[in-house]
């Protein structure tokens, strides 16, 4: 051991001496050389090997390992990106390459849950590809369009429709010989029977219908009127974009239309009240048809006095005075946080273009008067029909709000499922006990209240009507509800713009949709 070091020392000394002799006699160079020798003498064992030897193999190897390791990680990330992430990334509307892909793939079909073709690409006699929508304006908003700005499912699943999974050898062959590959098909959750029923029931009125499966969040129907025919979008574009009497046919009222909720909001108010007042069962109020508060008067519908009512009766008969009286005891802070837990003031957890509903009561800004108006769904609260359907569905589903979704799965042309969407929970917005109570009072609306029209149905329905008053115009008619009460299969939200009362105009539409579903 010591011999080795000595020998090594001797060798290195010799080398160094030779080196320094050979070196040009520049002074500073020599100085540093001397330092070097001195230093080495001082610390013999500090250096295992001679200095003039090349870099050691082990050191080099460790450097090689470090860099090769870095590159392996990087290649792994690259592979992971292409395998798992790229699909989501390239679907962005900012990606200008969609049109490039469209040249290589025949855009896939969009289907209803029951196998009807809602959109497909056909080739005309001259060989031009045309996007065809067999149902015309019935599905225009939810399925969307490809021309004049993509929208709806056509937009959300654009890349999916323009990608071909199938047999990759065959795809490669098609690429080579210049045959376009067939794109994937998107199967929606939409039920064609329900959609047709809702579409027909709305008739020529402006409004929207949304039907959701409470347990899963599947959107069974989504109709908005007035609509437009996506087949003729290019010809009709001028007319569609002129805004005549707030028609806005391009707008999907179901997910983007914001309306005052009217009495349908009493569902939230009732929940706020029972949370703050455990003795809510003992609640009693004497309705005289109107209530005064610091110069403001809130009336019941048609000034009708409901007499002595408990909470359930007040809800069933949509007693405004009772609910605005309740509001005096609700803390604004809690009311707001409850609403926000129901997704007010933020985007809905859905892959559908939507406008956030707004709940404007705020501590320090709002007084008792506004709270009283808000409690009965007037005030400044705004909600979309989709959101209202989600609230009804959450009650129906024992308090768990599911994320609404409209795309069930993606299939290759051969029918192989490439990607399936599974139901996801958005939030547990209330306890099962609270949900049970809300169910019972919503059932009361049908058995003893404003929705008694549904009482004759074979299935037991529950719900809440709403009549959102408009300054100088007819009210918006609302209905939200679900059926059957014991095991809800469908939740619904209906709005008819500027038509009148909910029980008169929205309720019959809901009834037709329920009928179509349970027939």
């Amino acid at each position: 051991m010591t011999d080795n070091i000595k020998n090594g020392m001797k060798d290195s000394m010799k080398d160094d001496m030779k080196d320094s002799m050979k070196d040009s006699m520049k002074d500073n160079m020599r100085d540093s050389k001397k330092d070097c020798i001195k230093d080495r003498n001082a610390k013999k064992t500090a250096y295992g090997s001679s200095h003039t030897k090349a870099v050691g193999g082990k050191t080099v190897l460790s450097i090689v390992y470090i860099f090769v390791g870095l590159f392996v990680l990087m290649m792994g990330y690259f592979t992971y990106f292409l395998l798992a992430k790229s699909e989501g990334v390239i679907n962005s509307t900012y990606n200008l390459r969609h049109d490039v892909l469209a040249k290589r793939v025949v855009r896939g079909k969009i289907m209803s849950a029951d196998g009807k073709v809602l959109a497909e690409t056909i080739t005309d006699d001259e060989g031009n590809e045309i996007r065809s929508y067999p149902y015309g304006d019935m599905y225009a908003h939810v399925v969307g369009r490809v021309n004049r700005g993509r929208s709806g499912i056509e937009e959300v699943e654009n890349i999916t429709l323009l990608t071909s999974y199938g047999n990759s050898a065959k795809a490669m062959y098609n690429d080579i010989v210049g045959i376009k590959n067939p794109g994937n098909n998107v199967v929606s959750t939409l039920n064609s029977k329900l959609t047709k029923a809702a579409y027909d029931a709305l008739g020529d009125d402006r409004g929207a219908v949304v039907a959701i499966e409470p347990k899963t969040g599947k959107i069974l129907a989504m109709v908005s009127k007035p609509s437009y025919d996506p087949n003729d979008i290019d010809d009709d574009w001028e007319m569609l974009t002129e805004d005549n009497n707030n028609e806005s046919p391009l707008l999907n009222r179901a997910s983007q239309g914001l309306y005052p909720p009217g009495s349908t909001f009493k569902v939230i108010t009732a929940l706020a009240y029972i949370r703050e007042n455990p003795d809510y069962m003992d609640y009693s109020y004497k309705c005289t048809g109107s209530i005064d508060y610091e110069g403001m008067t809130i009336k019941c519908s048609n000034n009708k006095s409901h007499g002595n009512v408990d909470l359930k009766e007040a809800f069933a008969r949509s007693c405004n005075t009772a609910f605005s009286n309740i509001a005096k005891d609700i803390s604004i802070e809690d009311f707001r946080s409850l609403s926000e837990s129901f997704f007010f003031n933020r985007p809905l957890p859905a892959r559908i273009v939507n406008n956030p509903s707004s709940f404007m009561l705020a501590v320090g800004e709002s007084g008792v008067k506004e709270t009283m108006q808000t409690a009965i769904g007037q005030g400044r609260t705004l909600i979309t029909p989709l959101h209202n359907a989600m609230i009804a569905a959450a009650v129906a589903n024992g308090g768990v709000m599911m994320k609404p979704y409209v795309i069930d799965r993606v299939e290759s042309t051969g029918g192989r499922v490439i990607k399936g969407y599974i139901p996801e929970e958005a939030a547990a917005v209330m306890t099962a006990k609270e949900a049970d109570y809300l169910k019972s009072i919503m059932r009361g609306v049908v058995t003893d209240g404003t929705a008694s029209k549904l009482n004759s149905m074979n299935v037991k329905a529950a719900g809440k009507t709403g009549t959102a008053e408009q300054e100088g115009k007819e009210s918006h008619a609302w209905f939200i509800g679900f059926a059957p009460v014991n095991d809800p299969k469908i939740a619904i939200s209906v709005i008819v713009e500027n038509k009148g009362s909910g029980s008169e105009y929205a309720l019959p539409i809901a009834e037709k949709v329920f009928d179509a579903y349970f027939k």
Partner: protein
Amino acid sequence: MQFVIELSKYLMLIIVGAFTYHSVRASVNKNVNTHMKSHIWLIVFLFMFHFTGYFIMYLQIQSSRLLWLYVAEALVFILIIILHRFIYPGKSRLLLINMMMFLSIGYIILTRLSFDKAVRQFIISAASLGIGVFIPVLIQRFKCIRKYGWVYGISGIAFLVLVLLIGTESYGATSWLTVFGLFTFQPTEFVKLLYVLCIASLFRNRNDFRIVCAVTAVAAVTVLALVFQKDLGGALIFFVTYIFMLYASTEKPLYLLFGLAGGSAASWIAYTLFDHVKVRVLAWRNPFGYIDKEGYQISQSLFAIGTGGWFGMGLFQGLPTTIPVVDSDFIFSAIAEEFGGFFSLCLILLYINCFLILINVSLKTNDRFYSLLSMGFSVLFIFQVFLSVGGVIKFIPSTGVTLPLISSGGSSIVATVIMFMIIQGVHDENSMEKPNKIGVIIGGEEHD
């Protein structure tokens, strides 16, 4: 015609795959005979690849300019291979052919992106290759180049300070010099050479604490000058190169650990101090959240890579020009978009392999200066590749560095070719008969 274009796309992938296979085989295999066979195949694949690339492009834009450029490039390749064969029969042909493969990939993708830039790239690289023919002989003739460490170090710093004083700004970094108003160049690229020469020279026969301090001071000043130029990528490359050369010289892992820890701390400080660093990190963490401005470039890059998929869109079939600075810093995205993911992985493998070839030169030489020099260049080269590729695929924040030998950029090409030729000069004449050290080490056998 579509038929031929599509088929050629797969053909190019196969050629690059075969090239990669043979190149890796030749660099890790100990048997000299397999080397010779591989070299011939590599040359064949190189020319096949180059031809196919121009063939596909000619099919789509029938311009005679393309033919001229192709012929000129092919002639230069042939000339350089012949020259090197006659002047330096013992030198690493593997290194030379790999370098040409990178150049030819660059030629093709640049011609597709911008014909003018491709012509410029060709002229500059041909000139560098021409000058490069003399470099190995100079390196071996003038052994005294090892003695001027301080001169290299100080002139390097002087260059960078000059740039700080009179340089022009481009893409947020002040790193360009305009000479007599005639042409601009990036001194950083040449300072890289001086810097590695300086460190190798100063460490060549001592590595005591005093010299470590002195060299660290030179390196620190150089890196700081780059930080002031806002050239983040450059500063990182210089820093990492120094840390690894220090480690190679002292063989003390502690220096490496301290260096990397210090580097991380410095990066954190840079992040908190400088807005332009924050912007890069922001764009890296959430490019799509800032897609309109900060994240635009990286988003476009990811769109390109993602849309290209595994097989690529084919030359002229994608939209790589939507990516800002695609011809230099983001050229890897253009390659991934049009040549595809598999091709890109092959390209990364080729770079790693090239690193192994370079570092093998460092292992084989018994001259410590040469050994340190080629080690420094190897690390410089591979780390630059890492920053460039990692940045555009969002593996790390983008630092705006070029992809060596492929990106358009005069100074970068000249400097990299000179660097390769210096290593070629260092390469031991007789090493062809010696067993390949990397091969031995990777093969798990003890050497000596």
